[in-house]
């Protein structure tokens, strides 16, 4: 028996290779964090040293949202829950002059957001989220009309991205995107928060 074994060609034992590779694999598995960089996109107004001039706006076009340091919401002097915010925002933007205290047209609709320095960040993000959702819903309806139900607004803006080359009809998408953005501009005005505190 032993003699027969010795005569066979000598092979390097590779069985431990798998174990070594396994160890390395487990190390990388544990250290990997597939980093999802997702969030709510937001634009800031440019900095000016002089306070911006007061622009006269018709009051009906402005949807005023106030949040206090107890995270309570006041929309057009009504106390509401966050879950109702999207509905009201949609009603305001797409009013088209029907109801007297909402906007005249989506182009003129403005949402004014004022929060306290004591407002929690989570509530702030939720409000931003609801407002974005409201605008997205309206823009999707518009996108649906323009493209004949083929694309949503997100798809249009993806395909209008000049650095993305997988789409062919970029120019058409750009036209659509600009049209929708012009018809339903997202105007959210944020006032400088005051430290009111208050209960």
């Amino acid at each position, binding site marked *: 028996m032993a003699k027969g074994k010795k005569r066979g060609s000598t092979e390097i034992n590779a069985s431990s290779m798998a174990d070594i590779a396994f160890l390395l694999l487990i190390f*990388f598995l544990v250290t990997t964090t597939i980093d999802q960089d997702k969030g709510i996109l937001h634009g800031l107004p440019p900095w000016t040293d002089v306070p911006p001039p007061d622009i006269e706006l018709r009051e009906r076009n402005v949807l005023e949202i106030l949040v206090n340091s107890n995270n309570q919401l006041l929309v057009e002097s009504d106390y509401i829950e966050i879950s109702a915010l999207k509905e009201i925002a949609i009603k305001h933007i797409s009013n088209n002059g029907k109801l007297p205290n909402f906007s005249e047209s989506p182009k003129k609709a403005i949402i004014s957001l004022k929060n306290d320095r004591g407002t929690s960040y989570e509530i702030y*993000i939720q409000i931003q989220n609801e407002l974005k959702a409201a605008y997205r819903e309206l823009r999707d309806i518009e996108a649906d009309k323009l493209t004949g139900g083929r694309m949503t607004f997100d798809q249009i803006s993806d395909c209008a991205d000049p650095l993305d080359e997988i789409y062919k009809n970029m120019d058409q998408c750009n036209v659509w995107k600009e049209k929708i953005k012009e018809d339903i501009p997202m105007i959210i005005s944020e006032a400088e928060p005051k430290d009111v505190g208050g209960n």
Partner: protein
Amino acid sequence: MGRINKKKKETPEISTASLPDIIFILLFFFMVTTVMRKSDLLVKYQTPGATELTKIKYKQATAYVFVGFPMDEDVYGTKPRIQLNDAIAKISDVQPYIKEQYSLVPEGLKGQFIVSLRVDKDVTMGVVTDVKQELRKADALKINYSAKKRIDE
């Protein structure tokens, strides 16, 4: 014929020779996808949940600002703090930091520059507003409030 019969009698073994290769392929996949965290976190943060999320496309054009509660409470206290790179920073450090990060962005991506705000959900808006004002002064107007996907029932 006799020979063939002899071979058949041997117990067939599953070849494990390709196992290391398979494992190596997996290993390489994870090695490539692993991003070693550049900066050690000195603050704890748990981002809020939201539904209207946008992905940041260009990581090279992104600057990060962390706001959260210090891990080392003995040194930094319990109030929310700002972290830039590897260190806890003052609010006045934000502007130079952003300008520096902007200068590091490759030329073709300058227009895509975005600041990712990783803020703990329990922080109050005071700190966040201060950071936002500094970002406005630094002319970094595109920001992204980092958030997790929230599933609505």
